[in-house]
């Protein structure tokens, strides 16, 4: 048993209660408070969006010239004569988005499958940065591309008489191209997260690579891929510059029964305006506060916000479900 004389103990070894007492660290508290406020600003942003959009939209619907019923049922958006039916704009948005999805979803998913399941390390190292570059190009540049490349291309292929200079097809295709990297990278992440053991099991049963990829890996990553798809739709709906430049400068008003369904209403080669493009066009002009025009774009904005928010939440649900399975 080792014992030592008290002389060998450290000088001042006796520690009093006071020395250990909690010190008021004002700086630490202030910093923590500041950091909390930083975090809370994001909440304020959301509240701000909801409040401002809601407030102005409310003013819009309170106006004697507007009714909720008209807003949700009329197929004419002509502010000049106080016709405020959201449908022409929503239809424009749906059109470009559907066309964009027809391009982006198959191409994006096929790219993801190729990169995740087929591509060699070298090919991946070349292809992924290219897709990143594609994703990093500003949307206004895609707008330019749509107007000066895609539209002339379509007009050459299908005849200038059949394709208007501004049309939803060209804008939609380019929006699709711009979303490909988003779909492919999110889907690839999902495919990547599927455990290697599942693939090995499939191979061990004599499955080909294709059968493994499509019947084992793909279903395994389904909720992750669905999340990517839903998020891509939300992105297409919110996309602005491409449609503002290339899709058209006026809402495509129509009347069921009068306008031919396929010739006009559902024709992607004629001009139409989306919700986002309309907001840009109206706010780019001379806009005075508290006018019906000013309020109307906030009503459109609120519609747009709620649509994308719903899709984003849906997408996150899928992501969460996907995480539960594999993490």
């Amino acid at each position, binding site marked *: *048993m080792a014992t*030592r004389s008290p002389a*060998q*103990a450290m000088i001042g*070894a006796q520690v009093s209660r006071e*020395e250990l*007492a909690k010190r008021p660290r004002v700086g630490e508290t202030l910093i923590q408070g500041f950091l909390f406020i930083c975090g809370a600003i994001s909440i304020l942003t959301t509240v701000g969006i909801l409040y401002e959009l809601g407030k102005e939209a409310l003013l819009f619907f309170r106006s004697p010239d507007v009714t909720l019923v008209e807003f949700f049922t009329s197929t004419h958006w002509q502010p000049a004569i106080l016709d405020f039916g959201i449908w022409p704009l929503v239809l424009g948005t749906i059109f470009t988005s559907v066309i964009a999805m027809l391009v982006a979803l198959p191409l994006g998913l096929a790219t993801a499958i190729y990169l995740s399941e087929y591509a060699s390390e070298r090919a991946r190292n070349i292809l992924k940065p290219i897709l990143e570059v594609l994703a990093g190009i500003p949307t206004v540049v895609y707008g330019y591309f749509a107007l000066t490349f895609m539209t002339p291309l379509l007009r050459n292929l299908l005849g200038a008489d059949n394709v208007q200079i501004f049309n939803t097809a060209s804008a939609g295709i380019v929006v699709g191209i711009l979303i490909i990297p988003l779909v492919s990278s999110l889907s690839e992440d999902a495919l990547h997260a599927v455990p290697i053991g599942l693939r090995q099991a499939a191979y061990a049963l004599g499955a080909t690579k294709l059968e493994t990829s499509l019947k084992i890996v793909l279903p395994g990553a389904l909720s992750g891929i669905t999340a990517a798809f839903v998020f891509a739709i939300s992105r297409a709906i919110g996309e602005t510059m491409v449609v503002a430049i290339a899709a058209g400068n006026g809402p495509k008003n129509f009347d069921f029964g009068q306008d031919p369904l396929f010739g006009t209403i559902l024709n992607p080669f004629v001009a139409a305006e989306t919700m986002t493009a309309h907001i840009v066009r109206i706010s780019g002009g001379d806009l005075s506060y508290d006018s019906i025009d000013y309020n109307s774009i906030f009503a459109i904005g609120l519609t747009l916000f709620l649509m994308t928010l719903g899709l984003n939440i849906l997408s996150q649900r899928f992501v969460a479900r996907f995480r539960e399975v594999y993490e």
Partner: protein
Amino acid sequence: MTSTVTGFANGNLAVEARNMHVYYGPFRAVKDVSLKIKTHAITAFIGPSGCGKSTVLRSFNRMNDLVATARVEGEILYHGNNIYSNDVDPVEIRRRIGMVFQKPNPFPKTIYENVAWGARINSYKGDMDELVESSLRQAALWNEVKDKLQESGYSLSGGQQQRLCIARTIAVKPDIILMDEPTSALDPVATLRIEELIQELKKNYTIIIVTHNMQQAARASDFTAFYNMDEDRAGYLVEYSGTNELFTNPKNELTEQYITGRFG
């Protein structure tokens, strides 16, 4: 619990745990540990993995606070003060009770800064160069690094990094140094140097060391505490006595089985 280490004078009491329980959320990781640690001695904690020896060690300087769900019941008395009492400052405790970790974890800074940083934040007023030198000398590292003080701490070998961590701890002049398996990531030569160093350090510091290596405990420590895990996976103190006594004449059958290599 069998503890034969009770007989030293109050003046030689470094820290004492009384009926300490540690919980992680609803799970009790350590139950009912009471022991006294003697100053200027080396106390080793041994036991099979999961027996809570590291948890007990981390409780001594409130490192468990960093785990959000951790909770300590009972008392740990440091100079008669319960360090878990609400009015005690954990930062102050950690300054006085330093810690060396399992894997060397130097800061991504220069060697000099690694040693000086702790002193600086604790408002050290003296000559910093002198402090760095003396700390590195005490950690038996000075001769190896005196010409490259401005190089990154990462440029050192694993054993050197661990001694740098010890120097860093010494620089803030703690009472007690907790060592959590300090040599488990090192090769035998580096391990031996650290063990020699620990022997040196005991002159000035109280040292508690967790080790999974029984030979190390037998070689290097004055006292040894053996922990084990019971059926509900909570760690508890089995036996605590002078190292010689515990290894030559264990009171508890479990201790004997453990030191003779029959389980663990």
